[in-house]
């Protein structure tokens, strides 16, 4: 077994706090006369043991004032232990705050010699390594100007260069590499790794746990002078991080209690609705130190993205939710809360005994007409449209026909649309369909977005993480809550239906709604795809969702949901806002009322009466949070929406 290079045995360091406050004769005399020269001792280190073998790298971690620097100073010889012994076999190069030995008035050239002498090197030795140092520090033309003119990065560079020019047996690094540009930091890290692989022993103090993990093999965790844990870097760092998080939470709770006492137990925000919009806003407000209460009248969180695990399958309780977005910041944001799988939505349509790929693409056309090339498909469609000879379309049927021709319309659009709206296509207004995208590639990916996937643990878990630490009350109706607890909040974020907020005083906004018939089947794989549309009028449901396929599930049974479109009546679950003239006009009137409502912000799909994809809801919530909390959260590329940051 190799001999230890550093042996710290039962070391205690004692400071006398009372004496340190008296540093002049006058006070000393007065205190002595008053007999106040008490002894108030304080142990910065208590019975610390540390044994380091050559070539090991140790990270010292702990909060401020835990004794990390004191231990380093003891090992370096700056402090003498009160009890115990310190033995170091080898020369030490301390890099405790680079450039501490610099004189600002002297030039870099002179400082190199001065700093080298401070580290105990001879002039001759410095002369030998002078060129290496200058090269590493990259100072070039500034060599003969006083370093008071240098930037802090340049000083750090010079300091590092002098400190690491020799291969010391023990290198001591105390949180020094945070300055300097990227290139220099890289150079430093390279140099340090080079020294480590060359057998140098490292003692490293940092608050950055990740860098400790990256650089060190071992770690010592100190807290108020006590060794809490010592061993492999990975284990100690993990334990430390866990503890820090707990402490943070406790502190946070204490702060909240204090704040609550001060403000008479008032919440900063009452968030109505625990869906994505409400949860994202509440999360950001909480991070900004605000107190939030989230209420929801349902008995679960998550709103319509709610997923429930049944027979080990995440069931999308309120319809299929597939996350897709083109915006990297939003994608990065949701990925903070969950891993996403690589699911790509490729729905298929069943018409009688035929099966087609969606969206309408070359696979679809090929199956319809046996065509192979885009040219053939385009000609076929153009020919069908020409035969129909429709001038100004008078209804949805004519509109669709003039866009895609007879076959696509009859087999894939007509029945589905009629089931959706509960009316004949001839009776539907043409504006419902403005365009029908046709794809002349063999690409079955339904969405055009860059990022797509399903959260691996279900959407509910994302919302659960968003709401971590935040007070949530379920089965709670907004109106009833406000009546019962008036004056318990400063501001309301209302994500329920805007018309409901005003008691439907101007009438009901209309929705399209969906009914689900969910059942568990004793087969392993029912339809081979997550989404299958049924486009013929005679089948009562519009589509069947087989939930396990969202997550490539291998469970022994399966759960499917048949979707039925139903006419909406007040009191039913609202799903899709209807963006027609009538509802638009009514919404405008409600908006007017909403604008007069002080301290209430309406948001989300129901609050704004506007259809949102999930990424849009999150973006809207983040934009509101940025504006409301006056801080930048993610860069959405829309700075004008941010308040004074």
């Amino acid at each position: 077994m190799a001999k230890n290079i550093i042996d710290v045995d039962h070391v205690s360091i004692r400071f006398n706090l009372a004496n340190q406050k008296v540093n002049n004769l006058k006070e000393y005399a007065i205190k002595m006369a008053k007999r106040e020269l008490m002894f108030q001792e304080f142990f910065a280190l208590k019975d610390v043991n540390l044994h380091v073998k050559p070539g090991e790298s140790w990270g010292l971690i702990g909060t401020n004032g835990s004794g990390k620097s004191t231990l380093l100073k003891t090992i370096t010889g700056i402090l003498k232990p009160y009890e115990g012994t310190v033995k170091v076999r080898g020369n030490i190069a301390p890099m405790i705050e680079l450039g501490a030995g610099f004189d600002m008035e002297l030039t870099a050239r002179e400082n190199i010699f001065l700093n080298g002498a401070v580290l105990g090197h001879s002039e001759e030795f410095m002369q030998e390594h002078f060129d290496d140092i200058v090269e590493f520090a990259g100072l070039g033309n500034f060599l003969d100007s006083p370093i008071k003119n240098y930037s802090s990065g340049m000083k750090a560079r010079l300091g590092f260069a002098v400190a690491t020019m020799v291969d010391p047996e023990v290198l001591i690094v105390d949180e020094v590499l945070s300055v300097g540009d990227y290139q220099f930091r890289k150079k430093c890290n390279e140099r340090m790794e080079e020294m480590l692989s060359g057998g140098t022993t490292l003692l490293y103090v940092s608050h950055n746990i990740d860098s400790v993990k990256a650089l060190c093999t071992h770690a010592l965790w100190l807290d108020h002078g006590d060794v809490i844990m010592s061993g492999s870097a990975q284990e100690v760092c993990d334990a430390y991080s866990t503890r820090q998080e707990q402490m943070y939470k406790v502190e946070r709770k204490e702060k909240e209690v204090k704040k609550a006492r001060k403000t008479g137990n008032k919440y900063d925000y009452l968030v109505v609705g625990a869906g994505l919009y409400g949860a994202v806003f509440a999360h950001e407000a909480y991070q900004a130190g605000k107190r939030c209460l989230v209420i929801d009248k349902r008995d679960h969180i998550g709103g319509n993205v709610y997923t429930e695990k049944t027979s080990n399958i995440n069931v999308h309780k309120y319809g299929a939710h597939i996350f897709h977005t083109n915006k990297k910041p939003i994608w990065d944001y949701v990925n903070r809360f969950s891993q996403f799988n690589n699911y790509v939505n490729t729905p298929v349509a069943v018409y009688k005994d035929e099966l087609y790929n969606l969206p309408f693409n070359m696979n679809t056309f090929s199956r319809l007409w046996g065509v192979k090339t885009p040219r053939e498909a385009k000609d076929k469609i153009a020919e069908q449209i020409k035969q129909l000879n429709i001038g100004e379309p008078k209804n949805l049927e004519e509109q669709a026909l003039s866009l895609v021709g007879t076959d696509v319309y009859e087999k894939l659009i007509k029945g589905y649309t009629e089931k959706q709206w509960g009316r004949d296509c001839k009776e539907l207004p043409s504006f419902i369909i403005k365009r029908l995208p046709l794809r002349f590639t063999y690409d079955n990916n339904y969405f055009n977005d860059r990022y797509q996937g399903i959260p691996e643990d279900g959407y509910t878990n994302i919302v659960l993480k968003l709401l971590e630490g935040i007070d949530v009350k379920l089965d709670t109706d907004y109106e009833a809550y406000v009546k019962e607890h008036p004056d318990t909040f400063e501001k309301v974020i209302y994500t329920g239906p805007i018309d409901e907020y005003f008691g439907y005083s101007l009438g009901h906004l209309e929705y399209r709604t969906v009914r689900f018939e969910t059942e568990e089947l004793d087969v392993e794989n029912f339809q081979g795809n997550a989404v299958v549309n049924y486009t013929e009028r005679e089948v009562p449901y519009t589509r069947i969702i087989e939930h396990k396929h969202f997550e490539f599930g291998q469970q022994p049974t399966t759960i499917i949901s048949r979707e039925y479109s139903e006419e909406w009546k007040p009191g039913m679950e609202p799903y899709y806002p209807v963006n027609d003239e009538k509802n638009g006009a009514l919404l405008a009137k409600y908006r007017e009322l909403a604008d007069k409502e002080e301290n209430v912000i309406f948001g989300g799909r129901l609050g704004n009466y506007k259809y949102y994809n999930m990424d849009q809801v999150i973006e809207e919530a983040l934009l509101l949070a940025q504006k409301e909390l006056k801080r930048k959260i993610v860069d959405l590329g829309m700075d004008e929406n941010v308040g004074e940051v």
Partner: protein
Amino acid sequence: MNTFRYRIRTFFQYKDLIKELVSRDIKLKYRRSFLGYIWSVLNPLLIMIVMTVVFSAMFKRNIENYPVYLLIGRMTYDFLTTSTNGAMRSVTGNAALLKKTYIPKYIFTLSKVTSCMVDFVFSLGALFIVMIATRASFHPHMLLLPVIILQLYIFCCGLGFLLAELNVFFRDIQYIYRAITTAWMYLTPIFYPMEQLPADLQTLIKVFNPMYYYVAQFRDVTLNGQMPGPRIFWGGWIIAFLMLFIGVGIFQKHKDKFILYI
């Protein structure tokens, strides 16, 4: 014995640091001043001229070559005050460095006194200029000057260590020391002839004022062209080493506690 050898070794390890610190002090003192090293000479000259104008009328009859007499006293006293004042702040002033890396603390004190001595040697040029100007003769006894400077240097080191140590624990020692040096100046025959004092006071100063030993030796070899008397010569050595032992002893005893107070 082992610790002694260890100390010698660390001293040699850090001898270049002393060199660097001394050259830094000198460089910084004269850098970017137009006249550079000439200040070392000019400064005592100017003071000498001013004081000669003021005091020569008063003491002229008693003292032969008053400018040289005054200059010797003044330069010696200046060396004492600047070196000991610098030494006093040497440990506290380098707190930032001492807290961060291990350096023997006496290095800073020693280098401060040394750089003042170098400055003192430079300023001897002023003395020689005045001697030439006043047509004073250069005596062979002046070859003893380095020995006298060494005595004074050792004395200042000892006092410097003592003050540096005290200043760590009691910062107001600086004010007290300032009062002491002022009194000390008047109790040393710098600009007045010794003979003008009452006999009792003369005896007291001759025995108990260390500065008297050095100033008197200096004047003997330079102004009077004679060997210093054995009392002041050997007395000078004894006082110098006594001071050094007191200073180093106290410094060494408490040096490990410095870090807690700076």
